[in-house]
């Protein structure tokens, strides 16, 4: 005898109800108009200009990095154009005391947190001096193993909580990263400890070539936060004001002891996955590209600021010139880094050099002095 459905818990209905709740949050639309005035973070004019400056600078850095890579003057590089709002507006909501655990595409946030540009170039070239972080710089080198930064972020956040610091741990991955076991373990651990962490998933629609729909049956990635019992937010990742506002809110909750938040930023990478042979035309059409280009974070923010009389071509050109000059100087500085030797690498293995490493150090020292 079939039970009366009305008296039963309906799992499908519950799932649908939850998924519908995750609507994309937006403040600034594609035309650069405020559509959600109540949520406007009301940044000062200087802050608005600074955020624009960083986005323009980073777009130039991306263009120059791609061309330097093509000239063989940079190594591993994961393009960032299209993700400026997701990366830089979320970072703009942070403080110097906050600890960043980046993925490999998150070089811009590290730079604006204080990682010198020439070190970012050394990292790209595969030189250990790129990853030598200053004592007061609260960052890890870019993570390569996708998802590993999520469990480590839970640990950093728990440490911050135990130290009673007023800070948060912030980590970034992509839509592909949200399928990793470490993604779940990270948000679940941080939730269980109510640790001050912010988990940001930059959903740029493709994990290399695999489209977002193939990653999960979940309608949004943000809703995965529900399973860990923590707040999840779906935000327009091409809207700098919305990304800033939700990150700032997450930070405030974390500082107050209310635990972690997971943020999904809907965005797009215009370029290939990396410069190592990925060809996006194999998995994306130019129609899709141009749909997303209409949402461009720089375009809409520029319109918004121009309407407020806070931005103009002259200002933009100043930033572009400054970026180009600084990149040139940083490349020169990176060129001056000493060549890596096997003795350097062996010397970095342990605090106290063990017998086997010492023997090899002696052998390579002799070879290198020839």
């Amino acid at each position, binding site marked *: 005898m079939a039970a009366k459905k009305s008296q039963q818990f309906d799992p499908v209905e519950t799932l649908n109800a939850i998924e519908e709740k995750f609507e994309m949050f937006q403040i600034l639309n594609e035309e650069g108009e405020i559509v959600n005035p109540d949520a406007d973070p009301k940044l000062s004019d200087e802050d608005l200009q600074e955020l624009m400056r960083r986005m323009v600078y980073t777009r130039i850095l991306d263009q120059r990095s791609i061309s330097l890579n093509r000239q063989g003057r940079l190594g591993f590089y994961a393009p960032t154009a299209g993700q400026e709002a997701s990366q830089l507006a979320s970072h703009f909501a942070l403080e110097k005391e906050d*600890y960043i655990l980046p993925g490999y595409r998150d070089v811009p946030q590290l730079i604006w947190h204080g990682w010198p540009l020439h070190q970012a170039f050394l990292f790209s070239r595969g030189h*250990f*001096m*790129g*990853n*030598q*972080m*200053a*004592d007061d710089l609260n960052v*890890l*080198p870019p993570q390569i*193993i996708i998802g*590993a930064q*999520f*469990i*480590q*972020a*839970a*640990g*950093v*956040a*728990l*440490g*911050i909580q*135990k*130290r009673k610091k007023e800070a948060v*741990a912030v980590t970034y991955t992509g839509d592909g990263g949200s399928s990793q*076991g*470490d993604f779940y*373990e*990270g948000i*679940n*651990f941080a939730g*269980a400890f109510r640790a001050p962490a912010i988990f940001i998933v930059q959903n740029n629609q493709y994990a290399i070539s695999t489209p977002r729909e193939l990653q999960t049956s979940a309608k949004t990635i943000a809703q995965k936060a529900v399973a860990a019992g923590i707040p999840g937010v779906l935000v327009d990742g091409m809207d700098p004001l919305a990304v800033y506002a939700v990150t700032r809110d997450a930070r405030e909750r974390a500082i107050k002891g209310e635990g972690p938040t997971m943020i999904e930023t809907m965005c797009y990478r215009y370029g290939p996955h990396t410069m190592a042979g990925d060809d996006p035309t194999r998995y994306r059409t130019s129609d899709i590209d141009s749909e997303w280009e209409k949402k461009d974070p720089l375009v809409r923010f520029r319109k918004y600021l121009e309407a407020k009389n806070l931005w103009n071509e002259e200002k933009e050109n100043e930033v572009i010139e400054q970026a180009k000059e600084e990149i040139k100087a940083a490349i020169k500085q990176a060129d001056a880094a000493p060549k890596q030797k096997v003795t350097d*690498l062996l*010397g*970095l*293995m*342990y*605090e106290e050099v*063990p*017998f*086997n*490493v010492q023997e090899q150090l002696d052998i390579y020292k002799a070879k290198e002095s020839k």
Partner: protein
Amino acid sequence: MAQLTMIQAITDALKTEMKNDENVLVFGEDVGNNGGVFRATEGLQKEFGEDRVFDTPLAESGIGGLAIGLALQGYRPVPEIQFFGFVYEVMDSISGQMARMRFRSGGSLNSPVTIRSPFGGGVHTPEMHADSLEGLMTSQPGLKVVIPSTPYDAKGLLISAIRDNDPVIFLEHMKLYRSFRQEVPEEEYTIPLGKADVKREGKDLTIITYGAMVQESIKAAEELEKEDYSVEVIDLRTVQPLDIETIIASVEKTGRAMVVQEAQKQAGIAANVVAEITDRAILSLDAPVLRVTAPDSIFPFSQAEQVWLPNAKDIVETAKKVLTF
């Protein structure tokens, strides 16, 4: 001085270091209120509080990530992996991350983590709990791998491991936890990592071994003594890095050597020790360097452990081959 089992000596070492350094944190599955499934962390949460001794959600990879993150905040994490057979779930954190932290940050960061874990066989655990995976660990540059064989060594080695500024895998043989007691000083003391210990002196043959096979090798040596063979037993104590100096000095003295490990024969510690001996002391050898190991099958179901694990009888048999070559 008290007569302690190895597990009591381990608890004692944890207590000692928790008192010495407030940055030492102990965590893992069931290590808090429950004191660990083997009771290695018994009483620690009561004494040091839930902030420093705490249970985690059940996820080994998460435990590894937690340790790395806490270390980045200046802590000295001592996580427990409940059984070393579960280590595959946390391999990226160990080999991919902790072992690389100092290297890939150009020396600007480190991972002073000590991972404690029960390992080895002979106590009839369910499938996939027991295993001898030390060889897997020693193949990763950047780690140190420590395996005590006595209560006294366990305390001194664990204190050294916790104080070490590089990641240490500290493997505790399950069969040794409560198999015998030994005088263990109440005060703190350290035993340097990377230093072997001559557990029994002899002049005809050197047995190089570690973990539960130390006791088996001593038994074998006593047996061989009845036939007038004088056998030296070296307990490696640290299997990465190896104490080459002690091994070679002994082999040069006796002219005959064999290596005993509980693990399977393929790859592993014993093969490495044999290679080091032939590299460095081949002209001192009067016989081939043989190995006593478990056979190259998957670690067996519990009812087959006793026929599979190497024992003193196997050691005597191989020792005679080396001695009479």
